[in-house]
């Protein structure tokens, strides 16, 4: 098959096929687990089978003498050198955080914690010997229920004196960004509409396809760590700070990384243990987790209880929103665990003009696995809550859910708009996206069919789910992060090396794990420098090659890292202009630069940027004082977030006899600003929507009463297959962001944020005639059926 690709006149905006693909489709990949180094040893972890216990003894004698074993490391062996795994986001001054040793020393707080590590010549021998480690546990009562945890009846970490890690409050009256929400609630109670709901954001598992893997080579001057991580730079710094190794002596490489979704935004016990083991035995060590281990111990996401109060006038104009969150940290605080629910604080008001807003979050410890960032991190939870509430409000008012949204949303002419949560939305056009989605969906026809099915009491009911969302992308302005007590900045770095041959190397600190940076950055830089797409090589994911960076998460790469690359290119051009002017015997002011060529205005005299790069390289004849290099770097620290938005519409069929939900039609129109590569944008939306659908219908990390993860394999944790997700219609509107030169907004999390409420709103909409107003997630057939049974028992019934 041959597909000819026309050479585009400009790269930005064209559906370039990805540069990354060649190695990925042929299997010439560099996953961490592929690495084989001379003398490399293998690790197996001994993990606690119980959720909470005192460790009374660890007997490693038999394991130590097993075939192939070089070392067995226990918590007490490394108690003085392993430090504590870092939490970089103390959300409150008095935040409580227990020490988090990589290998548990005298107690375990969730099932799966490492209690010992076996180092052996082969992975099989390490695994064999790990079964010979004899650990005795004195089991303690577990704390699993969030409300009980908050009540402090039994403490996860008795030394802290409480299960509450932190409480964080925002109030619009105090912030002078709005009114007092209690007044709004009182008014609503006295003659308006008051909607009170409690929603559960179930615990999810990121379930990236590549299990985490880490290799540490301690030989040589620098210790090198390869890790399947999203964050090589942050990891390097954090390991330096916690493991007593100078930052300058540690090189971290994230080679090909098989997905992350926030799940690889972590400094993990396994990375620390592998580092400690390699340093102890003085040989390269590898650890690759099994899927069962991954599901059990790689951090989870979501897990919040949302208590919500929405106040409105009789006509459906919202007057206030009050949010009380209870968020499960799990047993420990990970890198940004405590900040995840706080990110949501800015998004509950979503696209709407709420006059008053109050948000409070209580972060509590339990004996579950730790939680942390998972695709959307705080924003899907917030969006779910408000989009579910807007449907409830529509129901209360007797209006169409789209109408009630339009009544409350920010009109396109009202931008820039400062929200009640104090963010300044720079741009947006909710009307345009919604109108387009409505048409593509065939909204009116489907409403008609819904009425007919209701009329004839069809056992398969049709529901229409609406979700109009926005999100904050491009994490984040450093000053905002500072104000939120985050330990680092939100900038991103890029440098460009103009090679003597005219080829270009772009080094980015934003390390991709599936997003296609190599392609998108090439497009941006190729356009700016006027060089062929193929001549641009994008390098990333190695602290030796790309020493500065803040890595990849929070839909930040393009809006910050991409812009950094753009700015670095502009600096290259500025330098090149001086050399070109010298070469052309003209003044720099008389030159213009276009399509890779400097020309003297009004003449045909000119020179290409490649020739200028060569001139800078040989340096035989440069302007006086000119440093012989065109290379440049730029660090982008954004002034503001960017705010993609969109309208997702989902038609579901609910079989009321079995409770099964089938998605019949899914339409999304997203506004992610200017698009660098429409193919990549569309792909991000497809995958994001599928993950959001998975939260609505399939996925849940379930524990039993002893704190054992029941959904501990992919047989029970239901990641959907191709059969289980629908084909979807994606389209866009394009309202440029005003916060960066390219007008881009970010797209990594949009689909996931928008789709979950669209699906659940659809299911509830289908079941309204039966008196149903909520179905807890995931909306399994069993749950839907149970809700229907309960509604039937309480007197509901089909129209």
């Amino acid at each position, binding site marked *: 098959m041959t597909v000819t690709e026309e050479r585009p006149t400009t790269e930005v905006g064209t559906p370039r096929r990805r540069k990354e693909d060649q190695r990925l489709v042929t299997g010439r990949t560099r996953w961490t687990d592929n690495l084989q180094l001379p003398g490399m040893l293998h690790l197996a972890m001994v993990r606690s089978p119980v959720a909470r216990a005192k460790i009374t003894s660890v007997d490693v004698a038999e394991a130590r003498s097993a075939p192939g074993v070089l070392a067995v490391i226990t918590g007490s062996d490394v108690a003085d050198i392993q430090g504590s795994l870092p939490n970089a986001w103390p959300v409150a001054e008095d935040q409580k955080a227990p020490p988090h040793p990589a290998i548990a020393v005298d107690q375990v707080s969730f099932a799966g914690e490492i209690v010992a590590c076996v180092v052996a010549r082969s992975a099989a021998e390490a695994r064999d010997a790990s079964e010979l480690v004899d650990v005795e546990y004195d089991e303690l009562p577990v704390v699993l229920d969030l409300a009980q945890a908050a009540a402090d009846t039994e403490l996860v970490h008795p030394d802290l004196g409480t299960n509450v890690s932190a409480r964080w409050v925002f109030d619009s009256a105090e912030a002078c960004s709005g009114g007092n929400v209690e007044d709004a609630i009182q008014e609503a109670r006295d003659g308006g509409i008051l909607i009170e709901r409690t929603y559960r954001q179930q615990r999810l598992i990121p379930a990236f396809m590549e299990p985490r893997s880490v290799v540490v080579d301690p030989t040589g001057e620098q210790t090198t760590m390869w890790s399947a991580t999203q964050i090589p730079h942050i990891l390097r710094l954090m390991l330096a700070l916690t493991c007593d190794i100078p930052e300058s002596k540690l090189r971290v490489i994230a080679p090909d990384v098989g997905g992350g979704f926030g799940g690889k935004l972590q400094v993990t016990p396994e990375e620390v243990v592998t580092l400690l083991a390699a340093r102890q035995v003085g040989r390269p060590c590898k650890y690759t987790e099994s899927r069962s281990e991954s599901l059990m111990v790689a951090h989870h996401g979501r897990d919040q209880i949302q208590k919500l109060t929405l106040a409105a006038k009789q006509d459906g104009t919202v007057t206030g929103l009050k949010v009380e969150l209870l968020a499960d940290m799990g047993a420990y605080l990970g890198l940004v665990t405590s900040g995840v629910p706080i990110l949501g604080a800015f998004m509950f008001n979503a696209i709407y003009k709420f006059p008053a807003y109050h948000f409070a979050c209580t972060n509590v410890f339990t004996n579950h696995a730790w939680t942390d960032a998972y695709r959307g991190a705080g924003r899907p939870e917030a969006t779910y809550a408000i989009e579910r509430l807007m449907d409830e409000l529509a129901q209360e008012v007797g209006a169409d859910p789209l109408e009630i949204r339009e009544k409350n949303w920010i009109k396109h002419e009202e931008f820039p708009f400062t929200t009640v949560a104090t963010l300044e939305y720079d741009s947006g056009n909710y009307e345009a996206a919604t109108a387009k989605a409505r048409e593509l969906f065939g909204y009116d026809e489907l409403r008609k069919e819904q009425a007919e099915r209701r009329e004839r009491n069809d056992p398969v009911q049709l529901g229409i789910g609406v979700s109009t969302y926005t999100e904050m992308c491009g994490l984040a302005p450093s000053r905002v992060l500072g104000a939120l007590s985050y330990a680092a900045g939100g900038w991103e770095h890029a440098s460009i090396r103009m090679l003597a041959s005219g080829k270009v190397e772009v080094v980015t600190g934003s390390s991709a794990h599936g997003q296609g940076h190599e392609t998108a950055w090439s497009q941006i830089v190729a356009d700016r420098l006027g060089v062929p797409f193929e001549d641009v090589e994008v390098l990333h994911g190695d602290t030796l090659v790309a020493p500065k960076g803040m890595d990849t998460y929070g839909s930040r790469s393009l809006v910050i890292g991409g812009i950094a690359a753009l700015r670095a290119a502009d600096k290259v051009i500025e330098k090149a202009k001086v050399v070109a002017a010298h070469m052309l015997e003209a003044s720099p002011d008389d030159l213009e630069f276009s399509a890779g060529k400097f020309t003297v205005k009004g003449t045909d005299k000119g020179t290409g940027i490649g020739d200028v790069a060569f001139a800078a390289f040989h340096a035989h004849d440069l302007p006086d004082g000119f440093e012989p290099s065109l290379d440049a770097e730029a660090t982008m620290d954004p002034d503001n977030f960017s705010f993609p938005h969109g309208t997702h519409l989902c038609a579901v069929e609910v079989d009321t006899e079995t409770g099964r939900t089938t998605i019949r039609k899914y339409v999304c129109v997203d506004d992610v600003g200017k698009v660098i590569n429409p193919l990549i944008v569309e792909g991000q939306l497809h995958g994001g929507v599928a993950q959001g659908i998975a939260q609505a219908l399939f996925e849940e990390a379930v524990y039993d009463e002893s704190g054992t993860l029941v959904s501990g394999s992919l047989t029970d944790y239901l990641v959907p297959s191709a059969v289980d997700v629908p084909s979807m219609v994606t389209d866009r509107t394009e309202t440029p962001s005003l916060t960066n030169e390219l007008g881009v907004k970010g797209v990594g999390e949009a689909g996931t944020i928008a789709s979950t409420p669209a699906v659940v709103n659809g299911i509830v909409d289908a079941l309204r005639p039966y008196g149903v107003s909520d179905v807890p997630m995931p909306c399994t057939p069993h749950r839907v*059926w149970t809700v229907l049974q309960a509604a039937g028992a309480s007197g509901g019934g089909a129209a």
Partner: protein
Amino acid sequence: MIPAKFDYHAPSTVDEALRLLSEAEDAKVLAGGQSLIPVLRLRLAAPEVIVDLGRIEELRGVREDGDALAVGAMTPHADMIADPLVREHAALVAEAAETIADPQVRHRGTFGGALVHADPAGDMPTTAVALGAEFLIAGTRGTRTVAAEDFFEDLFTTAVGEDELLTQVRIPKHTGWGSHYEKFVRVAQQWSIVAVAAALRIDGDSIAEARVALTNMGSTPVRATAVEQRLIGIAPVADAVREAVVDVAEGTHPPSDLNGDADYRRHLATVLTGRAVLAAAAG
């Protein structure tokens, strides 16, 4: 995840396999391995000896044997699905086999392996029970035949002894019968939450004979004989069928798990049986 160590034998005849089994202390039989190998990897089992039946040619294939099909225990699911004899005389088995796991698993997994594994959520045991299959079990002292109702003894337990092998399954021909396997899952490759196997012989406008069996409604497949009786003589139309199957779940002991509790499964069994019967009548 890597299995614990074991000794491995790949005999080329049934006799050799039986000898190996009788000599070994702690042996497991490896058929297609699609359930066993994950169990070994997770080290939920660590047998000392594995006897792999994969090299025994005589255990493969489907042939006609009078009024039955003789199916070799090591016939892969994919071969069952494609086999014209199975499609003609035991379509229910082919139809149910198409719902097992996924294509890769169906290439390796075997009919006999699925039967001897006897997972209560497995699909093949139900079809064998529905069609009244007979099981040929070979031991060092000869071969015996066990009826379907006696073959499945409990969860993961069959009449096959530790030193015996299931060699062949005789499925009575159900030529010209309509059949349907109605499987309820949350995601495609899941084990059955509940499934219903139905096969019908229609005579004129009414059901002349019926076979109905349920998957995952107890520790072994449940043959719904009372419902089968009630279906005889009625027209295969929605209301009549629903009435006939209404208490299909009576007396069953389904499990409660992440996918649903026992009450829900009983309800599902009823709904799905109605659908299975109607689909069988249509097909």
